[in-house]
């Protein structure tokens, strides 16, 4: 299936050159979805009818020269925590299992304006709370590279869909690593931009001071083009930045001469899988051979990031999720006795155990008597962590390390020990606390065939530096680690 092997930009070019129609592109992904979905389960909703209707409309606009952008006509999948008007938007939760927003998220609207064809909504950990996509009300997604393993989370569906060639790219969201970690587990490129770069309007909030929407793509060029399309200043989002440097594709340059790369010693020690360590160090070597200056350094306060993050994120989540009460939308319990009983039953029945766990912790740390000791303490820690990164970026342009301490764990092995699961976020979490951009790039596979990703962290607003380094790495390795999964129509066993 050659059409499925194309990247988003390559497909966009072929559509522009009239070598491929938008309808044919939709045929290709729908065909792959039909073959692979029963195994992978990336999607909550597949909108086949809607996709073909969009395809027709977009083809017309391309034909008359109204849509000329590089992603026009390219099918995309959207994580199910981003509202799309008239489309089921569930956050993979029972409590929103019947919710159809009457408005569309700004980031998705930006894609629409660029001519994207929205194929469906992808599976996720419930309300983005999780690292394996196993807390979904709709059942887990499986890693397309080895279906006995998780795809990571919480954007597991988006990353699996791209890896399984069920779409050409996807949007994910990242609060503590939810784009970068599953991207590394699924062997795709994922980017979380600087906080405020992409509007959060229409993104169902988890941790408001940490959430960002970002691209999940087959390669770095696609990633840059998608980010360029979704980034915008949105007056409907008070935290939206007005940046004048969103021409991210300008950074697709094969050159890292003199780039200062720091590898934190704290990242590369105990707890890191040796195969992951190897692959990441090899990748650093590639960049060094291309002229980057690579050295180890001490990034302090690493161990405090996780407790600070879970205090802040859970506190914010407990407040953000209060609106789910069965009054205005979503699930409402059938039998109740008065208002407060209705609230309690609706929420207890509608939320899964991980969500309840985090809401309870969040409510506790915000409650009077504990607010100072826990919540404010965590916010002070956050300030210190940011200071630490400021110090590091005086000496380095990029901080390089693994995206996760291991490759994807097996299904069913993570949820029984939540603390252990939380510790897996060690590399990604501090990036959200400090509002920095971070990118995951595939750098190899382990002996089980599971992908390994390296994480590149930049200073605020330095997405272009990350993109340049990642692109250089891709050129040097001829994209050998960016291979789609052997699943469905892409399976080598198939003879077509």
């Amino acid at each position, binding site marked *: 299936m050659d059409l499925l092997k194309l990247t988003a930009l390559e497909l966009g070019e072929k559509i522009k050159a009239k070598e491929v129609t938008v309808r044919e592109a939709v045929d290709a992904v729908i065909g792959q979805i039909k073959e692979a979905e029963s195994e992978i389960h990336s999607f909550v909703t597949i909108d086949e009818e809607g996709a073909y209707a969009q395809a027709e409309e977009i083809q017309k606009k391309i034909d008359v020269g109204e849509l000329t952008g590089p992603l026009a006509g390219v099918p995309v999948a959207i994580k199910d925590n981003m509202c799309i008007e008239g489309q089921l938007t569930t956050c993979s939760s029972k409590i929103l299992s019947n919710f159809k927003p*009457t408005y569309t998220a700004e980031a998705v609207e930006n894609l629409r304006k660029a001519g994207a064809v929205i194929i469906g909504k992808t599976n996720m950990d419930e309300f983005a709370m999780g690292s394996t996509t196993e807390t979904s009300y709709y059942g887990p997604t499986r890693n397309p590279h080895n279906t006995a393993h998780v795809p990571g989370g919480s954007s597991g569906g988006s990353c699996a869909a791209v890896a399984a060639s069920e779409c050409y790219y996807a949007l994910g969201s990242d609060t503590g690593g939810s784009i970068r970690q599953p991207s590394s587990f699924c062997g795709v490129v994922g980017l979380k931009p600087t906080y405020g770069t992409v509007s*959060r*309007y229409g993104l169902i*909030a988890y941790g408001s001071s940490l959430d960002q929407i970002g691209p999940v793509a087959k390669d770095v060029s696609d990633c840059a083009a998608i980010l360029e399309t979704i980034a915008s200043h949105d007056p409907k989002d*008070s935290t939206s930045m007005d940046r004048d440097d969103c021409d991210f594709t300008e950074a697709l340059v094969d050159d890292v001469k003199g780039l200062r790369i720091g590898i934190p010693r704290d990242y590369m020690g105990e707890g890191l899988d040796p195969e992951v360590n190897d692959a990441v160090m090899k990748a650093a070597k590639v960049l060094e051979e291309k002229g980057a200056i690579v050295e180890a350094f001490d990034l302090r306060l690493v161990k405090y990031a996780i407790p600070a993050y879970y205090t802040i994120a859970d506190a914010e989540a407990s407040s953000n999720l209060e609106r789910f009460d069965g*009054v205005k939308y979503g699930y409402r319990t059938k039998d109740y006795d008065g208002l407060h009983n209705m609230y309690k039953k609706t929420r207890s029945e509608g939320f899964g155990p991980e969500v309840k766990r985090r809401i309870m912790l969040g409510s506790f740390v915000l409650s009077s008597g504990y607010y100072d000791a826990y919540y404010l303490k965590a916010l002070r820690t956050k300030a210190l962590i940011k200071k630490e990164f400021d110090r590091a970026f005086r000496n380095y342009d990029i901080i390089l390390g693994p995206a996760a301490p291991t490759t994807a764990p097996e299904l069913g092995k993570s949820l029984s020990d939540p603390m252990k699961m939380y510790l897996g976020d060690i590399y990604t979490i501090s990036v959200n606390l400090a509002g920095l951009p971070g990118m995951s790039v595939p750098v190899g596979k382990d002996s089980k065939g599971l992908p390994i990703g390296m994480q590149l962290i930049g200073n605020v607003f330095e997405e272009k530096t990350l993109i340049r380094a990642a692109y250089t790495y891709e050129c040097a390795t001829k994209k050998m680690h960016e291979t789609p999964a052997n699943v469905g129509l892409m399976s080598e066993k198939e003879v077509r």
Partner: protein
Amino acid sequence: MAKQYETVIGLEVHIELATKTKIFCGCSTEFGGAPNTHTCPVCTGMPGSLPVLNKQVVEYAMAIGLATNCKITQVCKFDRKNYFYPDNPQNYQISQLYLPIARDGYVEIESGSGKKKVRIHEMHMEEDAGKLVHDEWMILHLSIITEAVCHL
């Protein structure tokens, strides 16, 4: 021997500001609309909606603060008061707890025993709860809290 009690009174006054739109969204504040007509995803707490502050609210609040001899807080912020009730769509009220817009003012009044200063502890901006019968979600609000100063 009868006990002597001194009456001490403090007031919390809620003022609805005469802006054209609500505090955090562009819905009209016009009175008397049919239920739920002047609503939008923001003031009805829809998932993914975000508040954006009405500039006029800040200007009016500062004006009232200055008119009552308050100190205007140079850096103020909003906080959430979390509680569950159907007139409160997000089940939290956006208010100002720690850094209200104005503080430490006074108003002079005539009393039986001459001129008196009613000290104003603080003024803060907040969104008002809706009505359970018909919609008035998110009309904005200025809360004035006096100190306990009326001795009768």
